[in-house]
């Protein structure tokens, strides 16, 4: 199931091209120019790590579009006839969504690591683990939305709004000290904040931050659980087969 989801993403070159282009422009045009204007030193470095985190969240959301489309086009019925248990099916979807997001951002992460000189293998591996956890949790969130919203138009814009909200109201792209108080009070609880604070702590110092890891794990458990429960309910009416 996971391999199929990975292949599905890489069979849609348009999505890969547009998101890749967005990353390149954000990093090499926007971040370069804005870092000359802002009052924070090292803002480019800050933004570069954050742009990877926001890209992981963005790609992880795509699994919801796939699941919604499959249900609309009747492919889901075919998938359910395959010889895999429902539990394997759901975990496979979530795992596939997370792994493909990680595969997708790895070259971008490599570019940022080279530019910024991140060379500690242990820190890089631990930062990748943070990215994986974020991707896993966002996949669960996306599946939850995909099986809860019925209208195609609503689903499309609602998911885009959710993506915008959890990325913008987080510490991915700017430090919390510069946010207006109404955003600063909620930003620390965004899963994207947990991931970006944790990854920055690993890559730029001081090291592993257990509080961000705990926050991210809680997000994964809650939304993966919810996503699985909602998806299962949609497939089997809540009755375990």
């Amino acid at each position, binding site marked *: 199931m996971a391999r199929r989801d990975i292949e599905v993403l890489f069979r*849609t070159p*348009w*999505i890969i*091209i*547009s998101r890749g*282009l*967005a990353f390149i*422009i*954000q990093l090499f*045009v*926007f971040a370069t*120019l*804005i870092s*000359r*204007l*802002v*009052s*924070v030193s090292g*803002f480019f470095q800050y933004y570069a790590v954050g742009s990877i985190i926001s890209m992981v969240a963005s790609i992880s959301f795509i699994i919801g579009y796939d699941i919604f489309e499959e249900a609309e086009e009747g492919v889901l019925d075919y998938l359910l006839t395959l010889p895999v248990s429902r539990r394997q099916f759901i975990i496979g979807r979530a795992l596939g969504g997370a792994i493909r997001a990680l595969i997708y951002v790895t070259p971008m992460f490599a570019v940022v690591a080279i530019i910024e000189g991140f060379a500690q293998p242990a820190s890089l591996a631990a930062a990748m683990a943070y990215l994986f956890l974020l991707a896993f949790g966002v996949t669960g969130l996306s599946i939850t939305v995909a099986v809860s919203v019925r*209208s195609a*138009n*609503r689903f499309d*814009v*609602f998911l*885009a*709004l959710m993506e*915008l*909200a959890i990325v*913008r*109201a987080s510490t991915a*792209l*700017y430090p919390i000290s*510069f*946010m*207006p108080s*109404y*955003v600063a009070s909620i930003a620390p609880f965004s899963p994207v904040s947990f991931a970006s604070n944790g990854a920055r702590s690993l890559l730029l110092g001081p090291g592993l931050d257990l509080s961000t890891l705990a926050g991210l794990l809680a997000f994964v458990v809650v939304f993966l659980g919810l996503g699985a429960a909602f998806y299962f309910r949609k497939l089997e009416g809540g009755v375990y087969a």
Partner: protein
Amino acid sequence: MTALADNFRIASNIVQRDIKILFSDSFLVAIMFANFAIDLFVTAATFGRLVPPSSGIPSYFQFIAPGSNFVTCSVAAFQSGRDIWRERYIKDLTSYLLSLPASRRLWSVSRVAGGVARSLIATFPGTLTICYLYGILLDPRILGAFSIVGLFSLGVVGISMAVSAYASSIEVFVTVRSTVQLYFSFFSTLFFSPDVFPSFLRPIVLANPMTWAVEAFRQLSKPGVGLGPASVLVVPSLAFAALGTIVYLYHNQL
């Protein structure tokens, strides 16, 4: 005279139909405003604090605020093209629409007008918010603000109608939309003044309709109405609207 009145009545029916499609799900309009609110009150407000007046821009928040509204405007304008794409490929309505008593040329022009009307409605609260921030809410210059938004959306509706004719799948349509929006946002003066860009990028920035839309809006904060940037915007807007009209017309000559 009767023919003119008939044409006007039909055109107004087509525009009304497009507006009704927009409001068939008012949730979507609310979400568009929510997007604008996040852009303005989260992202722009934070960058406004990050960029100090010593950068040469007295208030960066006010500087980038009109951009949030124009981004929403381009989303709303592209929604028109998307609806036309859905009519053609998903709902298979083209033949039915062509059987209605309206000439194809009138249909085409009215669809563009409908798209502009929808964009103006979708950005209405946003335009009022930016006018409030610019201190022109109770000033005749507010009419200039709506004219600039309408002019910008005219061009984007044209682009979206042209794209909808050639996009073979919704993925292609969405990708072109994202690419155009990337160009609008990052290669314009939405975030930076032109002198901040490297010299090789400046021609691209100056050719961007978003540049002239935000510059025209920024002019409104000054006393008197400066028509310079707005008059530059007229050319690409009319050109893209003409392109959208012609492409729509061409693709409906079954």
